[in-house]
């Protein structure tokens, strides 16, 4: 297992069970995902033709991915023309080293970061801290989980698993004062603590929501304004992006700006949309002296060449998490990887290992709510089934399960065997039933009856009734 997954031997079943038995977490999950999901529906409904716009966005992504090499080189040339530096990282270790080198060359002691899932993916903070650099997350949610020593449990709402009480505890401990369990007071305290960090930082590290090949610009979406401070106050700005984030043209950007915030929360636009084209120019009042763009592959070009290419269209809005009835009950940490929810169940096996993540592709009822919420209509259920198919060829897969499916297919292909099997099932199960229902099933069926009754096979099947049906 490589470092993509956070925990070795992540125990999905235990983590899920723990989450289900955690009432404050359950309450937080329902409250936040319901609000965000209602926003998603409202947001799409407010567009003249959200379906057409989403299809258009998907086509742009398909095109950009089909010509990724060309657009990345165009992006590189444009960024350099604007006075920026471009670095190519084939994996997370290279990306960390590139950023550490920039920090060393620029004599960086303090770093502020705006929210970046990609930096979570490469485990950047521990590497920077090990080099003696002070790193501060400036997205309020990220700040809280950094202080608490945790990982994000949601792509856009990283501290979703926290309550105002637990946030007050974390912030009070950090600041050495007793803060009230009141959202406004807590936000104010966070702001005070963070402003100081912005003022003293040498380097700001941001993610990238979209990069425009045509102009060499990057777009960063945020709600708190921390991304703008991160990218303008410090001397150095390092932006880290997965290579799939590139868009061909300037006019492609509004398509995604219209969709991203709507999909995530129902906002027509997020509060801050920063578009950055190179470092500070002569005569400008603010902006960094140096602008570095780090292009991260980390398995993406490998996935590009597989039937799972569609997963690279993801714009990290988190809508599939909010829509997912499984995520809404077990939360993000249960998934074990950097990315959670339905998209995480695809990304973690793809980028970590299919064999080491046996549960994730199955942790879905395939209800399709994720695809319905996705701004680029990623067919997540189809990819989950594709991963399940890959698993059946893995060595670790249960022989018994394989054999059971094979046997059932053999039976179901022969109507006479099917009828016989049906009769046997009826013979065994019918005597155990009360009013046609079973309270307990034997074998693997016990899992079913742990939560609900099971219908006993009917006294006469449909095919037995058909000949005399009036």
């Amino acid at each position, binding site marked *: 297992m490589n470092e993509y997954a956070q925990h070795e031997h992540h125990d999905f079943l235990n983590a899920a069970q723990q989450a289900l038995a955690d009432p404050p977490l359950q309450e937080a999950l329902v409250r936040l995902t319901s609000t965000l999901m209602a926003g998603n529906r409202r947001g799409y409904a407010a567009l003249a033709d959200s379906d057409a716009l989403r299809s258009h966005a998907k086509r742009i992504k398909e095109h950009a991915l089909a010509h990724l090499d060309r657009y990345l080189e165009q992006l590189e040339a444009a960024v350099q023309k604007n006075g920026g530096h471009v670095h190519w990282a084939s994996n997370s270790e290279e990306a960390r080293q590139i950023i550490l080198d920039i920090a060393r060359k620029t004599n960086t002691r303090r770093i502020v970061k705006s929210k970046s899932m990609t930096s979570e993916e490469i485990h950047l903070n521990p590497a920077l801290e090990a080099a003696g650099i002070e790193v501060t997350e400036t997205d309020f949610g990220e700040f809280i989980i950094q202080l608490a020593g945790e990982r994000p449990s949601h792509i856009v709402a990283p501290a979703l698993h926290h309550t105002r009480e637990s946030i007050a505890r974390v912030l009070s401990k950090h600041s050495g004062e007793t803060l009230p369990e009141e959202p406004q007071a807590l936000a104010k305290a966070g702001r005070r603590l963070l402003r100081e960090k912005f003022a003293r930082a040498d380097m700001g590290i941001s993610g990238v929501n979209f990069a425009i090949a045509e102009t060499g610009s990057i777009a960063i979406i945020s709600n708190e304004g921390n991304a703008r401070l991160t990218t303008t106050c410090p001397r150095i700005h390092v932006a880290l992006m997965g290579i799939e984030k590139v868009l061909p043209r300037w006019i492609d950007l509004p398509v995604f700006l219209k969709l991203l915030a709507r999909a995530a929360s129902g906002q027509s636009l997020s509060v801050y949309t920063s578009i950055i084209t190179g470092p500070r120019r002569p005569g400008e009042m603010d902006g960094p002296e140096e602008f570095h763009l780090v292009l991260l592959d980390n398995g993406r070009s490998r996935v590009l060449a597989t039937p799972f290419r569609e997963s690279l269209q993801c714009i990290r809005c988190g809508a599939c998490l909010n829509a997912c009835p499984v995520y809404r009950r077990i939360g993000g940490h249960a998934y074990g990887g950097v990315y959670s929810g339905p998209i995480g169940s695809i990304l973690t096996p793809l980028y970590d290992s299919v064999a080491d993540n046996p549960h994730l592709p199955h942790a879905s*009822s395939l209800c399709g709510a994720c695809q319905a919420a996705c701004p680029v209509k990623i067919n997540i259920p189809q990819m989950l089934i594709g991963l399940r198919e890959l698993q059946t060829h893995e060595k670790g897969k249960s022989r018994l399960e394989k054999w059971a499916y094979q046997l*059932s297919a053999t039976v179901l292909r022969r*109507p006479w065997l099917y009828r016989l099997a049906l009769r046997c099932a009826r013979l065994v199960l019918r005597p155990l039933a009360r009013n046609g229902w079973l309270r307990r099933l034997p074998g693997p069926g016990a899992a079913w009856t742990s939560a609900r009754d099971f219908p006993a096979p009917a006294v006469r099947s449909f095919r037995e009734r058909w000949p005399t049906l009036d």
Partner: protein
Amino acid sequence: MKVSLLVTCLGDALFPDVGVATVRLLRRLGVAVDFPEAQTCCGQPHFNSGYHDDARELARHTLRTFDNGQTVVVPSGSCAAMIKLEYPHLFHDDPVWRSRAEDMARRTHELSDFLVNVLGVEDVGARHEGKVTYHMACHLRGLGLLTEPERLLTRVKGLEYVKLERADECCGFGGSFAVRYPGISGAMVQDKASLIEKASVSAVVATDAGCLMNIAGCLRRRGSSVQALHLAQVLEKT
């Protein structure tokens, strides 16, 4: 008009009343129904679990069984979705079987789809006394059948239609999902049952045997008096 009934394996074995109601309803609407007796299972459980070779075997069996060129009516959104959306995909690199799959995909209709979009009927002349709510099966979303069952139900005489909160949220069935993750699936169906009870209805209607066995099984376990019925069972009665 003549159609072939694909009753589904769950319908055949566990809920034969649903098949019977479907046949009676269709006959009442002037549709002749036949039942190709070689039919067994469409292969969806195998497909969803990743056993695509086994799924292809069952798909071929189903395609042979329904090779009569007739319209196929399925009282199940998930089996209809398997045939309409997945069969062509399963045979994407097999020109002969792919064209047979595409042909059957075109001819196959989930029951509410057939009634509303093929027959063009919304008022089927049914009567059902009492307050009824409706759970939307996930595969109807996949098939784009977002309003059809509701349109049929609201035309039933005597029926007082109550909208279900979070009606389109999965009940937690998901085939093998319910057995692999009984904790998560159980939490989902318990929530569904609570919302159904909150609607204070005498019956909840669904369009799939999977949802029905899950929801009805949970309602029974909770000692609830709410009946879980298939859409065909409500539409059949006059």
